[in-house]
């Protein structure tokens, strides 16, 4: 058992922290978020240059030989800086699917992903599907040797910036069946794809994406088109672990800013941080952050375990981080008082990001339910 980072991982962390400090301060971020495009492609190029986009991939896939821990390190730093660029969508999610792709797909897409030329978004959620990855009304039907896709994907984070979409669609079976889920790579400029782009409350960009008889070739399919729910779950569990790491970074800064504020803000002639009721609140915020780090390590280190262990670990982490993030977010605002309500201070923006992380890939209720069902299945297997 070992909780140390490798030299490479520490190097990634240090150089990324420096880059964010120099070029991603809060005022700069505010301007970028308010700009027409809402992100900086030149920042993405710098991420590529630093090796961030290559870090979690094996050497034979053209990467630097790292894995989920490298992604964890990057995402935690992104969380500290409230970075909006689509690392999660491109590297963790699209990269996760492409790892399971054919060598032709890797050659075509993975190399362009790692070099920073190609940016992806993951179109999985639907207006009525909530967090159920199999609840799909989007269909993909056989069309000659290829496929024809139709449907509506909801809140596709990063889609306005993406050149390609990873799309889940039903190829057979009923609306929520586990069987019959396929995964497809679709160029965003394919005929029949339309989008409605909008900003999100936490500074990112997203789209409603509509597919109307969009035709793709057989080479667009990742994995088995009739049975890929397992792959989708696996890749989203990787995304959950990475999101947890991002949350840890945001919690760290929110806590630090709150403690700092309580040392300078005076009421009744004394810094409010001298009041025990607030000291204990901040002690609890500290504990929530520490436990979130523990759960992030746990979930990340269990990504390669058997399916049930992996899923339980991801859900357990998402539950704790959802609860911890809500507590830290709300209390950060409370302790900042009226100033916490202003757009001017960074703290409100950490609060907003932490709030949105809870609902990405399933909120506390969803994952508590999933964990409970998996535990029951676990016990049933043990009893047999």
């Amino acid at each position, binding site marked *: *058992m*070992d*909780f*140390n*980072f490798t030299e490479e991982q520490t190097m990634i962390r240090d150089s990324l922290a420096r880059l964010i400090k120099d070029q991603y301060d809060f005022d700069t971020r505010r301007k970028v978020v308010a700009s027409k495009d809402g992100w900086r492609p030149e920042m993405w190029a710098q991420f590529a240059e630093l090796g961030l986009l290559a870090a979690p991939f094996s050497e034979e896939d053209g990467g630097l030989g790292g894995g989920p*821990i490298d992604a964890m390190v990057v995402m935690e730093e992104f969380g500290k800086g409230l970075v909006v660029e689509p690392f999660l969508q491109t590297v963790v999610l699209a990269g996760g699917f492409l790892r399971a792709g054919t060598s032709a797909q890797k050659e075509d897409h993975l190399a362009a992903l790692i070099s920073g030329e190609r940016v992806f978004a993951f179109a999985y959620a639907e207006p009525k599907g909530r967090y159920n990855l199999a609840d799909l009304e989007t269909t993909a039907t056989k069309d000659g040797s290829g496929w024809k896709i139709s449907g509506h994907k909801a809140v596709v984070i990063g889609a306005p910036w993406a050149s390609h979409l990873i799309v889940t669609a039903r190829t057979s079976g009923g609306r929520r069946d586990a069987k019959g889920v396929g995964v497809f790579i679709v160029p965003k400029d394919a005929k029949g794809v339309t989008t409605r782009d909008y900003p999100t409350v936490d500074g990112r960009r997203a789209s409603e994406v509509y597919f109307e008889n969009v035709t793709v070739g057989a080479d667009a399919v990742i994995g088995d088109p009739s049975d890929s729910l397992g792959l989708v779950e696996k890749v989203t569990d990787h995304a959950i672990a990475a999101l947890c790491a991002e949350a840890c970074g945001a919690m760290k800064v929110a806590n630090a800013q709150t*403690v700092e504020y*309580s*040392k300078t803000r005076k009421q009744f002639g004394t810094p409010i*941080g*001298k009041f*025990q009721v607030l*000291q*204990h609140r*901040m*002690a*609890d915020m*500290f*504990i929530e952050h*520490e*436990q*979130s*780090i*523990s*759960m992030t*390590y*746990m979930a*990340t*280190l*269990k990504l390669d375990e058997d399916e049930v262990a992996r899923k339980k670990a991801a859900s*357990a982490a998402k*539950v*704790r981080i959802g609860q911890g993030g809500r507590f830290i977010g709300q209390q950060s605002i409370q302790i900042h008082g009226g100033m916490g309500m202003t757009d001017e201070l960074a703290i409100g923006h950490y609060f907003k990001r932490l709030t949105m992380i809870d609902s990405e890939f399933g909120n506390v209720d969803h994952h*508590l*339910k999933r*964990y*409970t069902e998996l*535990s*029951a299945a676990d*016990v049933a297997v043990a009893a047999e």
Partner: protein
Amino acid sequence: MNLEFSPEEIAFRDEVRAFIRDNYPKELIGLGSREDLTREQFLAWHKILGKKGWSAPAWPKKYGGTGWTSTQRYIWSEENARVDAMMPLPFGVSMVGPVIYTFGNEEQKAKHLPGILAGDVWWAQGYSEPGAGSDLASLKTTAVRDGDYYVLNGQKTWTTLAQHADWGFFLCRTDPTAKAQEGISFILVDMKTPGIEVRPIKLIDGTHEVNETWLTDVRVPVENLVGKENEGWTYAKFLLAHERSGIAGVARSKRGVERLRSIASQETLDGTPLIKTDEFARKISQLEIDLTALEFTELRTLASEAAGKGPGPESSILKIKGTEIQQRLTELTLEAVGNYGAPYARGMMKDGTNEIGVGPDYSNFSADNYFNMRKTSIYGGSNEIQRNIISKMILGL
């Protein structure tokens, strides 16, 4: 970073598992860690471990520790929890032992450490007083120098299991003019010394777990002073930090969750096992998730200790979360047994009778266990004091 056990660690696990299986006293199986055991029952496993050299895994090797890595110690506590083993009591091994080998002189080490390791000498903790609980430094018991003796006068309270104790470690005021934290000394006292009276305190769960200890002109040789006179507060704090690491009780709580699951599978609601109802199943899930967070926080703490950092203020997290989970576990167990939480408080059962409990076996004492565990967020520095420690030592407030 990885969670895997090395082949050596797996071999170690198999070795300790086999040792526990072959040597754990059969008559203790199922007794768990109850408060109403006899002195012999309390010490039986400790004595066996003492002979094997495994009674104090966290001690430095030169003083009789095992030299195990933090991972091996983790495996050791997991394996003991699997059989719900009655572990050595903390007063000697986890509390006074580390103070003696860190701050004591050679004579004190030679005199006291072997008895602690062997489980021959039972220690009691003389810290709290009626007027000094969370504000421990306001303690009033005095030790006045008289030739080669200190003369102790005062009253200690919550002296856990002192009815069995051979020796005690007492915090006494040796300089009444100094500021609260200065002027306190750490003194070892033979409990057979004239002038010591131990009176039982009956608790809400019916047990006799703690006592009042009255000290009236108790004459203690000056060589029983640990370290320097008037510097006992430093040693007292050191002891509390040591007490806190290990207080998380993760392995034991894991067993508790298993037991709770088993009870909730046998209890029914509208003909359905309780564990299959959404509401109760999710309560168990939340508890298990919180326990996982605690477990990995403890593993991280162990790893940083292995890297040479002693138990720091972070151990307050383990104390707070560990005790909250232990309490929640007994709370849910009591909920799970429903009506059969009510019969028979433990103290009402007569010693030596064969009277069987009312209701299913698993329901016996579930209310008493819940009542008893309220102590955990009060002792060892209350959970509020732990939050003070975090806000002062870590957050700098």
